[in-house]
Each structure stands twice: as structure tokens, then as C-alpha cells.
């Protein structure tokens, strides 16, 4: 099995319950993580939730549309104006506190690579640290362990935060994704994160060209076979755009098609801009898989 291939310490698991906050998600349940950016310059609809009231409104909408998790980020993934830890904290922490107050049970994830930000987020009630840059700051996972919350172990191609892939190549991208994410998961356990609160994320587009992102989509089953719950973040990303040659505002269909394939192959958490549409895709997949009965069936049976 490729997941048992050499390359660092690896923890395989039996697929089981995912625990976030006080909630438990069994293996068959597909979970939507809604993206809420506290940035003026994100790639998708820049600045739309820059205003705190608009951002909270976005949370209300996402919850109403079926999001189980909100993922709050204060720094765009792409290069741009410097956002230091202090500014990132200013952007995200009061907002997380407000979301926590409005929704005591909602799972709050924080998209950050900095342990300083993670620590502040834990203090105001975050449930998950989404370490998209793949363990760049090795102390971030320690913060998660100390707070007793979860962590996402991502493959960013060993790139520093906020850098673009430049002529990256892999002998086998999937093998590298497995090596990195499973090593990060092992370290998370070693520093004291509860195994039930750890996810792995191949991180589409991060340290990858479009071919690489398509390959990890196609072979997502190899990540699922490790037993770790797999998170995918494909919403409106460049590999979807290049697949179709469409701009960022025309990637919904490609995003949803990719979402459906990932769900079919066993991903469990889906980071998304379009919560309602994603929820519908995931419900459809759950029903096709036979994990959930259809909502209401009459056709041909009257």
C-alpha cells in the first residue's frame, strides 16, 4: 500500500469519528467548512467580508445554508502587502470572539500559520487550527495541543507562507503529500493533539501546478486509505480555472464537480465559498453512496 511507503514516521488509522469542539462527525458524514476571509484582498471576491458586520452576516448566512465549520483567515494565501502577526490578530481575533458569542456550538477554524495568532484564537474559543502552510511554524501545533483543539496537517510543498509555486516538480506528488501530511500528523500526536482532532489536507494549488492538483484529486483515495479524515479545499482555485480556462468568478461548476469527485473518493471535510451548493453536492453524493436515504421518494411508487 502506498500509504505504508518509506519516508518518515507515519501513523495510519482506522477511519473513525472526527471530533471538533464538542461535536462528533462519524466517518460517513460529509462536513462543510465555510470560508470567511477577514482580508481586503483575497483572490475570490476581494474584501467582501472585510467589514466586521459583513463578515458576521456571512457567518449567519453560512450557518443557515448548512455549514458546520467556519474557517476564519486574516492573511491572503497569495503574496502581497505584509500582514504581521499583530495585524493578523487585529483582523481575526475580535471577530472570532464575536462569532463564538453568537454561536456557542459552531466549529470555528482559524486559517493561520503563526503560533501567536493560534494562541490568541484558542483564548477566544477556536476549535481548529487550519495550518495551510504545512507546519512552517512548528510551534503552531503545540498551541493546538495545549488548548486541546484540532489541527489540519497540510502539504504546501515545503514552500514558505504566501509564496507561489515556481517550476515545482515531484517524482510523485501523491507520495510527497502522504509523506508530509502523515509526518505532520505524527508530530501532532507526539506533542499531544488528540488523534481524533487531526485532519490531513493535500492543499490543492499550494506548492503545486494544475497537473499536480488534478493528480491529487484523481488519487485522493490514496490519502483516504490512510484512515485520517481528509479535508479538501478546492473552491474557485486556479487549477479549476486552468482546467476550464475560466476566470475566478466562473469556477463554480468546476469547483462542484471536483467536490463531488473528492466526496466520492472519501474526503470528509470540504472548505468552500458556496455553502448551499456544496451542501447539495455532498448530500447528493451521500445518497448515491447509500450512506443516507434520499429525502423524499414518490416517483414511480404511487
Amino acid at each position, binding site marked *: 500500500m502506498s500509504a505504508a511507503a518509506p519516508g518518515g514516521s507515519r501513523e495510519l488509522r482506522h477511519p473513525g469519528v472526527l471530533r471538533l469542539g464538542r461535536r462528533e462527525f462519524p466517518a460517513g458524514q460529509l462536513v462543510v467548512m465555510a470560508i470567511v476571509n477577514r482580508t481586503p484582498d483575497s483572490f475570490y471576491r476581494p474584501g467582501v467580508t472585510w467589514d466586521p458586520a459583513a463578515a458576521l452576516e456571512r457567518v449567519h448566512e453560512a450557518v443557515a445554508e448548512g455549514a458546520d465549520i467556519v474557517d476564519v483567515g486574516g492573511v491572503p494565501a497569495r503574496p502581497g502587502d505584509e500582514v504581521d502577526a499583530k495585524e493578523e490578530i487585529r483582523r481575526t481575533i475580535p471577530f472570532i470572539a464575536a462569532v463564538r458569542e453568537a454561536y456557542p456550538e459552531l466549529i470555528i477554524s482559524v486559517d493561520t500559520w503563526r503560533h501567536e495568532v493560534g494562541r490568541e484564537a484558542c483564548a477566544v474559543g477556536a476549535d481548529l487550527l487550519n495550518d495551510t502552510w504545512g507546519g512552517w511554524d512548528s510551534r503552531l501545533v503545540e498551541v493546538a495541543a495545549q488548548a486541546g483543539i484540532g489541527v489540519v496537517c497540510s502539504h504546501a510543498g515545503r514552500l514558505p507562507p504566501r509564496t507561489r509555486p515556481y517550476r515545482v516538480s515531484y517524482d510523485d506528488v501523491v507520495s510527497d503529500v502522504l509523506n508530509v501530511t502523515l509526518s505532520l500528523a505524527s508530530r501532532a500526536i507526539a506533542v499531544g493533539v488528540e488523534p481524533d482532532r487531526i485532519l490531513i489536507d493535500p492543499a490543492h494549488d499550494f506548492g503545486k501546478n494544475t497537473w499536480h492538483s488534478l493528480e491529487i484529486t484523481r488519487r485522493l483515495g490514496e490519502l483516504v486509505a490512510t484512515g485520517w479524515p481528509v479535508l479538501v479545499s478546492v473552491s474557485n482555485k486556479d487549477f479549476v480555472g486552468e482546467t476550464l480556462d475560466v476566470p475566478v468568478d466562473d469556477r463554480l461548476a468546476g469547483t462542484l464537480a471536483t467536490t463531488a469527485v473528492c466526496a466520492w473518493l472519501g474526503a470528509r471535510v470540504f472548505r468552500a465559498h458556496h455553502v448551499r451548493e456544496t451542501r447539495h453536492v455532498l448530500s447528493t453524493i451521500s445518497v448515491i453512496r447509500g450512506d443516507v*436515504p434520499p429525502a423524499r*421518494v414518490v416517483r414511480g411508487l*404511487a
Partner: protein
Amino acid sequence: MLTGAALCPATPLLHPAVTGRAAVVPELRAACARAVTQLLTGEPDTVVVIGPAAATGQWDPFGRLDPSVFAPGLPATGHRSLPPALGLGALLLDQAGYAGRRRLQAVGHDEPVSACVRLGRRLSETGTRSALLVMGDGSARRTLKAPGYLDERASAFDAEVERAVRAGDLGALQRLDQRLAHDLMATGRAAWQVLSGAWPGQGNDAEVLYCDAPFGVGYLVAYLRPSAASTPHR
């Protein structure tokens, strides 16, 4: 002797597994449950389930409907399924907690009136206290959205069945036209004529518990018990 009769539609929508997460027609299911419960208060020794099928014949009384014939993906029972009408009757008896003797009697869709009546008479002459659970549907052509599209004659056909049942006038069911019933996709015709043969008397106490066509198929749920004035076969 007959202790009573219950009429229920043979729609798969009665099966809780095949409609998905919604009950779809909870009031219909409740009416059927009530009709069967009332049927069992007559304390029959045998419940005879009568249902239309491809051919006339008896089926294994321990048989069941395999819902996976309608809903692949549901766990299969691993046994050959009963014809749906009989299987749904068996389901209603199971749901009512009935564990007594049962006879599962199919009547062929194309069985002529005379044969249906003869079969009914035989069923009523078994010498045991029998209750009849008659599974049959009215026309499937009641509305534009009905499975068989609209046929203007459908409502009158179903209304006559309802009238006869409401009046306890089961003999009138023998006058249902076989050809018209076929055209109207009224698959209950043969089963009702078996009932009529078993119990041709008039003036029985009848209670109609449901009569509607929410999906363009006529559903009738009723319970009949012999009144002092009636003369069921003995």
C-alpha cells in the same frame, strides 16, 4: 365465517423504507394501520390477504415483500419477494403485531369477474373465522400528473367503488367492468371482486378511513364488519 374485512391500497409508499427520509403520506399509513387494527379486533383465526398479481395462486404465508425490488441499495431480504400487493398486506399485519395464521391469496389481474367471485366464495367457506385484508388500488389515471395520465372516466369509476364500500353494498362490486378497470389501470378490481364473492351481502357496517388520490392513484382505506342484518357466507 368472516369476522370482517379491511381494504387498503397496494402502494409501495406504505413501506417505510422506500420513501426515503420522508413519510410522504403519513395519514394514509395511519389509516391503513387503523383498518388492520380494527380487523384484528374481530379475533380471526386466519387473516386472508387478497391481492392482485400476475396469476392467481397462494403464496408462502411466511413470505415478505423485499423492498429492494423497488429500492435497490436497501438491504435485500435474501428471499424471493412476494408480489407487492401481498407483501404490503403482510407488512401491514407485521406492523400491527399480528403473528397468527395467514393465507396469502393472489388473484390474477386478468381473472374474469366470475372466477373472482368463485374464488371469494371458496375463501369464505373454509369453516374458520377468517378476516379479509384486501389490497387494491383505484384508477391510476385520476389526474394529469397520475402515472397513467388523466382519463376522464377514472373519477366516476373510483367514486362507484367508494359508494359501494361506504354503503356496505359489496355485491355491487361485481358489476365493475373488467375492461374499463383495465383501461383505467384500476388494479384493485380483481381483489375487490374476490371480496364481493366472499361477502356479497348488503347493509354491512362500513367505515371509510381514507379516500383520496394524492398522486393521481385512487387510494381507499375502509373497514367493514358484518352487521346483524347482513348475511355473510358461513
